[in-house]
């Protein structure tokens, strides 16, 4: 679209500029966005169930009872029991609790690392940019899951390895996004003004540029959490995640695989929970993106 240079002819019937702006702001209020609201509701329910797991269920997620293995759903066991007689509903809640906790922690490290490196690359340019962006090229040369799986393998199983692997692979997206934003932002007048005012590079980056570009990284983080949850569940499924008997949605799906034809709920329900979590996060992410993106 070619922007018109001619100022529009004022419409006498149009509401005044102030009321129009107020109207627009009201339309943008977060609680007027149905998708965002739906996402928030889903997340509140899911996170609430995970946090309140010990209150909701009285079973121990790891307590085995071989006399009551592979029971169907009943009033006593809402979703039945698994092959070791553990209550599936309880394991579902505790697994969700663990996976959500790991995912929410795991998303922080690549966010910080990628934002810092992306800022440096975009702000300084030259060889700093060249080195950081070549590093990005190298990391993206590996398929996401291949590198995560290989790293978790060499580092040994456990939560720490998951964090390291996700950070090592995940920072590149943030670095790319932030670098691009910084490249545009640093040409703005306020940066020139700050620079001519004699402010240090560090201050310009942290106080002037970063607050203006961080939104994009934040929006990406919302979809990144979904990917992290999937990675954690996938590692659990492959048997490379949190070691048993700790409940984890991925290992639950794997355990249930052998009973797919007789006890389908053991495999399908944990997966469905992952889908619901992902849906909630995506809805919130998209809604926030609409709200936070300037010029809407």
């Amino acid at each position, binding site marked *: 679209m070619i922007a018109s240079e001619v100022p529009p002819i004022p419409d006498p019937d149009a509401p005044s500029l102030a009321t129009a702006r107020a109207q627009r702001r009201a339309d943008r209020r977060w609680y007027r966005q149905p998708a965002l609201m739906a996402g928030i509701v889903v997340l509140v329910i899911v996170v609430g169930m995970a946090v309140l797991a010990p209150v909701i269920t009285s079973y121990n997620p790891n307590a085995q009872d071989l006399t009551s293995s592979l029971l169907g759903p009943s009033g006593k066991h809402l979703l039945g029991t698994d092959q070791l007689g553990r209550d599936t509903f309880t394991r579902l809640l505790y697994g969700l609790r663990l996976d959500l906790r790991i995912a929410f922690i795991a998303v922080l490290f690549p966010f910080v690392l990628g934002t810092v490196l992306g800022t440096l690359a975009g702000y300084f340019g030259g060889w700093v940019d060249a080195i950081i962006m070549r590093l990005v090229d*190298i990391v993206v*040369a*590996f398929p996401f*899951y291949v590198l995560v799986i290989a790293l978790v393998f060499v580092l040994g199983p456990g939560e720490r390895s998951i964090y390291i692997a996700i950070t090592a692979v995940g920072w590149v997206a943030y670095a790319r996004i932030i670098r691009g934003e910084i490249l545009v932002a640093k040409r703005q007048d306020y940066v020139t003004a700050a620079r001519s005012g004699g402010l240090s590079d560090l201050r310009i980056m942290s106080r002037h540029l970063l607050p203006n570009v961080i939104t994009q990284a934040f929006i990406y983080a919302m979809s990144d959490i979904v990917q992290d949850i999937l990675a954690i569940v996938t590692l659990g499924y492959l048997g490379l995640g949190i070691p048993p008997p700790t409940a984890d949605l991925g290992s639950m799906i794997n355990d249930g695989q052998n009973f797919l034809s007789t006890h389908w709920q053991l495999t*399908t329900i944990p997966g469905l929970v992952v889908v619901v979590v*992902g849906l909630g996060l*995506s809805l919130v992410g998209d809604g926030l993106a609409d709200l936070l993106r300037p010029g809407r």
Partner: protein
Amino acid sequence: MGRTGFVVQRLLLLVPVAVGVTIIVFFMVHLIPGDPAATILGIHATPKAIALLHKQWGLNRPLVSQYWLFIDRLFHGNLGQSLYYGGPVSSLIWSHLPPTLWLLAYAVVLTVLISVPLAVLAASKRDGVRDHVVRAVPLVGLGMPQFWLGFLLIYGFAISLRIFPVSGYGAGFTGHLQSMFLPGLTVAFALTPVVIRSLRASMINVLQAEYIVTARSKGVPPHRLFLRHVLRNAVIPAVTVLAINIGFLIGATVIIEQVFAIPGIGQLMIDSIFQRDFPVVQGVTLVFGVMVVLVNLLADLAYAALDPRVRFDR
């Protein structure tokens, strides 16, 4: 800069990436806690075997010379010896490669067959019912664990309906085509949300272009308009998105091969992890890296060849 210049430039840019990929794969050994040789050998560890591995990888030499040794062996097509299967890693990978390539190609074809019609449906009437339905696909699809989707398909089509085999690679071309349909579909479903999103967005953009208005006013029938005018111009960003996500696609095959018991290099990787067969894991990681780099290069070149508007100068 002409076309040759562009190709040369792309190839030159490949050098640092290729070197970096080998460095990362090389350093995997040094990420192992403790004495890598003892850890890698695990239950197979005898003082003799540890000493042999130390000698083979030059673990007592400085890092740079270890790396040179690694590169030197690489250039001779030597990826080391498998600890579990015995025999060279390279021939193991070579024999497991065809099923993976089959799965990838199948998945790309299915992705195109699913996403193009859906994107056309959505873009043809923006904000209509169909548009909203199609736009909901990525919301659900992106949060879905692929292996879980694989199970659903197995349960539905292989166990209940018995249309497709539960697992395996099948024999012969038609056998592969049938056996690999569900795995291919699973991988394709992981990719379609992203492709639909970008295809829909770029089609809506193209629909607003002046040449479309012109074509419409000349009375070009809608199906012809979409096929000849819109799709052809809108498909290029989607090809780029597909290429960018090829890394993801290749990674997805690792998991899907596991679900459907397909004897590809992804399954080789996971099996080797459980056998603690480090050289094989290292070799497969390298091959996966090389695959992504090559596919991206091909996509870049194809992209330039497809779209006459791509300019070779920067």
